[in-house]
């Protein structure tokens, strides 16, 4: 074994993992996350931080395109594995370690230069901008557009830059200043983001001015498998806590979720731990300060957190009448508009939208696309 191989093996013994899954893969995904956590492998924050991409389930065409896009952005040494069944997880992850440590395999895998075709950690899915023309902007262009023979201030709507990037538009911000506005999709590959969700947003600085949420690869009204209520609520809690920067309790919540989901450990013990966790969240003084005070109308995320705890507790006790509300995507859009980026992430995590459950009567509030 030569030095380079030895170095490579040492380097990849603890790879950072990016787990990508489409709608309806939450159960399998939880298994993967559980196994990754058991191995103490860190979860990657972004494609650039990733060594191993784990694709959960069989992604549809839209998600498949996104995954290819993400894959281009993953620096070598890298490995990718698809998991469609629980039994494949352990051998799959073992195999990635081999691939990562194999110099020849890495040479074959390495992209030409690792450059990425799109911007943002959240890869662009498709660009449909026809809605986002701004009349204010057009007036402006007519008034001042070409006075100086230079391209005045703000970029005609469809201006393409070298590299095929779309340039920013102009729109009023919440303080009444007309500033640049970017159209970017959030998700589906973001840390602590609901599976398969994409929100196309217009961002001004880090304030969301327009939002349109949809699920990838889901036909309207299509039935999709979803987690049991308790596990679902706990997933949401874990995500909110992780986004709030409280990684310890978030990891504990996730561990609880796994035990609820896979029936490990006795229920009474799980319920006790859940109560302990809930008390801890209750006791924190900083958390309400960060999420919004309990009394205030802006404490929606904290209220949602509280409600998730209750519903998880009720579901655990077996007697809950807690019928989880199906998330209405247009309502989510409305709540996102005007929110600052960090707040928006919390809102999405707290809402934890998923397509209609398999058993519910089909309605047509699904995916706006």
């Amino acid at each position, binding site marked *: 074994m030569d030095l380079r191989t030895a170095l490579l093996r040492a380097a990849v013994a603890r790879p950072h993992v990016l787990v990508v899954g489409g709608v309806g893969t939450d159960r399998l995904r939880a298994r993967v996350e559980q196994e990754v956590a058991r191995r103490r492998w860190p979860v990657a924050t972004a494609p650039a931080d990733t060594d191993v991409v784990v694709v959960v389930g069989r992604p549809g065409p839209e998600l498949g395109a996104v995954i290819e896009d993400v894959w281009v952005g993953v620096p070598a040494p890298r490995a990718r594995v698809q998991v469609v069944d629980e039994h494949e997880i352990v051998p799959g992850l073992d195999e990635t370690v081999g691939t990562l440590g194999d110099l020849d395999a890495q040479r074959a895998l390495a992209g030409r230069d690792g450059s990425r075709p799109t911007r943002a950690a959240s890869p662009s899915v498709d660009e449909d901008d026809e809605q986002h023309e701004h009349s204010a902007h057009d007036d402006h262009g007519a008034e001042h557009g070409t006075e100086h023979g230079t391209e*005045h*201030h703000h*970029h005609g709507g469809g201006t393409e*830059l070298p590299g095929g990037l779309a*340039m920013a538009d102009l729109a009023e911000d*919440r303080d009444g200043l007309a500033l640049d506005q970017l159209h970017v999709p959030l998700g589906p590959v973001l840390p602590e983001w609901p599976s398969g969700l994409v929100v196309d947003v217009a961002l001004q600085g880090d304030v969301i001015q327009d939002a349109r949420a949809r699920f990838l690869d889901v036909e309207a009204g299509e039935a999709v498998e979803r987690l049991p209520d308790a596990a679902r609520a706990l997933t949401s809690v874990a995500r909110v806590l992780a986004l709030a920067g409280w990684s310890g309790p978030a990891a504990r919540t996730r561990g609880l979720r796994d035990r609820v989901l896979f029936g490990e450990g006795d229920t009474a013990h799980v319920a006790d731990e859940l109560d302990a966790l809930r008390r801890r969240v209750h006791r924190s003084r900083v958390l309400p300060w960060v999420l919004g005070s309990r009394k205030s109308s802006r404490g929606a995320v904290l209220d949602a957190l509280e409600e998730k705890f209750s519903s998880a507790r009720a579901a655990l006790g077996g007697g809950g009448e807690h019928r989880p509300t199906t998330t209405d995507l247009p309502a989510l859009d409305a709540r996102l508009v*005007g929110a*600052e980026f960090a*707040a928006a992430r919390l809102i999405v995590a707290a809402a934890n939208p998923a397509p209609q459950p398999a058993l519910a009567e089909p309605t047509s509030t699904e995916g706006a696309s």
Partner: protein
Amino acid sequence: MITIALFGALAVTAVVAGALVFRVDSMARATFLLLLSFLAVAGLVLMTGLHYLGLVIVLMMIIEMVVMAVFMIMYMMNPAGLMPMSMFHNTRGSAVVAATTFVALAGGALLVDWPVRGGRPAPDLTMALGESLMGGQMLTMMTLGVTLFATIVGTVVLATGRGRYDRLGDELDAPESDDRDRGGVGR
């Protein structure tokens, strides 16, 4: 010898970086070239032995240029410099004015018969400056202080679109401010 080389390097950096500010396409680069020019001048000031003031220039200019970068990118048409651009007007006249200024100033600097150096620097320059500002130059310091305070108030009034009456109601008694994101203390 080293002193002369250092002086030359810093001087060239200051002037060239300053000139490039108006030649590059990217606003981010323009701002940080200006910062480079300031840092070179700070280096020259340090060479004269004014350590405190040199470091204060470094400190202030970094903060100032980072804030400037934010505004530049907010208001400029081509923040990232992805497209070539030219934003000059009145180039020829300005060039004449600038060249004349340079000739006059540099000529004056070279031709004037400067007096000989009088006295020696104080052993602790920082202390000397402090005692001067808190003593003989107290009036200067107070004027600066009041001016800065007036600037803070004036600029906030000018720049903000919403005052406290918009946020807290006409009687300033709204239980909660009308802000989308609240701060960490008040309403």
